[in-house]
């Protein structure tokens, strides 16, 4: 509430300063705009920018650090025996924030915690008030300073255009920032994880059962974090998906590009693209409630024992999802093969299919490989279909009729629900995420390079 109010207030101040700046420029011009270096609106924009941009920037910085700073302040006042035990600490912080929010009457906690809760409440109030005061005074200060700087000779247009350029550079840099953010957040928590479980065990261990004891006195397994079964399951499902998507996608691309009449193309192509626009959660529902029971019942008729969460169901549906991806990419690639190659082949008397098989396809092969690799990376990172249709059991099997689990399924199961950022169980999700990120990144970079090289060849 206070944030939207603050943003509205800053916006209002900006509008006001635009008006003031413009008025001042008009006043300075003495009624003749040619006395000014720039248009009056430029002067208005100049003051508005000086009023709004620093304020917005401050808000951003403030929200980035407010939570951390307050938490550090609270923790520094807690007794040492709570701070040193991470389990107790998170519990204490929980009750403190409940008390601060006014919902802590029923809690039976020590007086230090209650004190800390009150302090947290006070700190939050102070922080909110301080934020409003700081931001509004920054905005007003920016307005005042820039207003006073306005003169008839001031190069307002050049100034505002320079500011615009910096803002644009900042926006482009967000692409870099989010990559850096991904890498650091994954690395940070994964490093945390690797202090508890050795990377070798994680990467090459054959057993995955992340359930660890919550309390010390519980009789529970230690938890095993060998990720090989997850990788195997991911590969199995990806393989099944590719077996569906690559032939169907390639053949439909060939038919669309070489045989189909324009009318047929105009209908079939958008229809295929619909498959790419269906949300993955819908595919997941379809896989879990239609395809999996269908496979199980038919398997039973044939005397096969098909698990109700078989890798086959998830893989088939994922393959269907990827068809348009493969088909549109390979369509692109094949249409780039120069016409001269095709004409040469026809001139020697080859039929259409012979030309496609012996000339176009080999010429387009690098590009098609790139397309397939991009599709593989998409299949590996796909989440909802496998979460809903594949199982949780980390089986090491090559049998597509059994249940397997994947990297993405485990990330979701580990992080949905209670998270404890000090247990290997929660942290392992970030290690899996890191592996996932690196593998898909590697595949993409490689595939894009292959496709690019192929393009250069025929350009």
């Amino acid at each position, binding site marked *: 509430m206070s*944030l*939207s109010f603050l943003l509205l207030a800053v916006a209002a101040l900006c509008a006001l300063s635009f008006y003031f700046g413009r008025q001042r420029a008009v006043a300075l011009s003495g009624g003749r705009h040619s006395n000014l270096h720039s248009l009056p609106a430029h002067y208005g924009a100049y003051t508005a920018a000086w009023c709004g941009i620093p304020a917005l920037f401050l808000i951003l910085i403030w*929200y980035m650090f407010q*939570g*951390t700073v307050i938490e550090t302040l609270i923790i520094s006042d807690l007794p040492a025996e709570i701070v040193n035990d991470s389990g107790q600490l998170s519990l204490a912080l929980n009750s403190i924030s409940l008390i601060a929010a006014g919902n802590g009457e029923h809690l039976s906690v020590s007086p230090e915690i209650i004190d800390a809760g009150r302090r947290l409440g006070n700190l939050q109030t102070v922080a909110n008030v301080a934020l409003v005061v700081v931001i509004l005074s920054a905005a007003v200060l920016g307005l005042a300073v820039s207003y006073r700087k306005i003169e008839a000779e001031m190069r307002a*247009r050049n100034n505002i*255009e320079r500011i615009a*350029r910096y*803002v*644009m550079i900042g*926006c*482009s840099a967000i*692409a*870099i920032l*989010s990559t850096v*953010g*991904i890498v650091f957040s*994954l690395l*940070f*928590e994964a490093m945390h994880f690797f202090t508890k479980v050795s990377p070798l065990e994680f990467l090459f261990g054959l057993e995955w059962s992340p359930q660890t004891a919550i309390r010390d006195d519980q009789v529970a397994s230690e938890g095993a974090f060998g990720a090989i079964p997850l990788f195997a399951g991911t590969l199995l499902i990806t393989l099944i998906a590719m077996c569906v998507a690559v032939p*169907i996608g390639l*053949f439909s691309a*060939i038919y669309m590009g070489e*045989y189909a009449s324009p009318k047929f193309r105009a209908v*079939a192509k958008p*229809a295929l693209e619909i*498959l790419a626009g*269906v*949300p993955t*959660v*819908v*595919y*997941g*529902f*379809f896989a*879990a409630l*239609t395809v999996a029971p269908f496979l199980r019942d038919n398997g039973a008729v044939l005397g096969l024992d098909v698990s109700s969460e078989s890798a086959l169901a998830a893989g088939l549906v994922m393959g*269907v999802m990827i068809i*348009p991806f493969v*088909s549109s990419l390979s369509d692109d690639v094949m249409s780039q093969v120069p016409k001269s190659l095709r004409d040469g082949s026809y001139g020697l008397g080859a*039929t*259409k*299919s*012979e030309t496609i*098989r012996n000339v176009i396809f080999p010429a387009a092969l690098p590009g098609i490989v790139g397309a397939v690799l*991009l599709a593989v990376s*998409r299949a*590996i990172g796909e*989440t*909802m279909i496998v*979460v809903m249709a594949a199982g949780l059991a980390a089986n090491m099997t090559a049998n597509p009729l059994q249940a397997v689990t994947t990297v993405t399924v485990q*990330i*979701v199961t580990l992080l*949905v629900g209670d998270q404890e950022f000090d247990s290997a169980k929660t942290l392992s999700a*970030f290690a899996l995420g890191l592996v*996932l990120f690196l593998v*898909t*990144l590697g595949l*993409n*970079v490689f595939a894009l390079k292959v496709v690019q090289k192929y393009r250069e060849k025929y350009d």
Partner: protein
Amino acid sequence: MTDMASLMEDRAAAKVISDNLRKPVDWDSPKIARNIKKRYAAERRFKIYGLAAIFLALTALFVLAGSIGSKGYSAFYQTYVQLEVTFDKSVIDPDGTGDPEVIGRANYDGLIKSALRERFPDVTARRDKRNLYGIVSGGASYDLRERVLENPSLIGQTRSVWLISGDDFDMLNKGYIDPAVPEGDRRLNDQEVGWYNELVADGAVDKQFHARFFTNGDSREPELAGIWGAAVGSFYTLIVTLALSFPIGVLAAIYLEEFAPKNRFTQIVEVNINNLAAVPSIVFGLLGLEVYLNVMHLPRSAPVVGGLTLALMTLPTIIIASRAAIKAVPPSIRQAALGLGASPVQTVTHHVLPLAMPGILTGTIIGMAQALGETAPLLMIGMVAFIVDVPGSALDPATVLPVQIYLWADSPERAFVEKTSAAIMVLLAFLVLMNGLAVYLRKKFERKW
């Protein structure tokens, strides 16, 4: 040595070819005719493979649509049961105060239960009674309360009222529970099926349009669960996503396409954008969890965090589409503007951007459609909580349509299957609408220069 051998081989091969060339080919020989026939057959087969591939893909699409449509259409209506309810004065307003507060607090559940007991007086066992009360949904008492509050003159009268039925009876009425299967294998026992048959024989069972599905929030009771809460959550999330990714994406695209010098920074940005477009969505969820929740301590399950996460995800889509649209504006426009004395920024804001806007908007709508259908990153930041209330702002805990679908798909009650399918239909309707708008924009404003 090997060179020598291969040379010999080449020569031998050349000789065979030239011998063959020297011999005139008899084009009418049966061998050639067979060969041509074979090649044409191969050609036809190849063509059929292509057609079959497209046919298979489209079949998958139709099966998907058909299975969801056939499972979900029944969620749009709901079974109602007619009962003779006595609006007992001693229960509702014993002192005759007429005070809405007193009337509002009365035990309407009890009224329904006694109506049910009156309808089936021979039910006495405690277990059977509990089953009997299951005929009517727990939400029916709220309807009754509304009715009395609206019209207090009902107090003391007996009226026949249509009440929303419980989910098991709804399923029976819609044919999802087959009374022919053995008693142990179905949710309702023979006695309950008997009650149902008796009610049907009296004409006291009816299906009505199920408006609650569109107006309610989530609920544990399938017959009371609706998608409005999730729809509002999706709306707030998308607004935050749009508010962030549209300006940032367009500004970045303008910079990269119009102003950026060819240097290292620009190169890194381009590589980053291409890679971000291919990063699995769940990784963005991990980023959101770590940065927004753990570092910045933003509220869990709030649409604002969902929007921030999805904004990073849709940013590459918008940047790539906007760059393509800006690139499509011919250079002559820019040269004309510059020639008339416009500054580079003025050239872009006054001429290039307006001309590129339809393309940019098309790309943005497609990006928003992707964001609307996205589930996995939102699971990471806790938007999977069970939330009954409709969110009032972007900071309230909420869920979104695809996550609601995921949650319902996981629910064990049979009645949630049709709710899930119906929610999918609503989600798909929104997506079709958005993509249709994008296609319309493209068709309407497309310019060939």
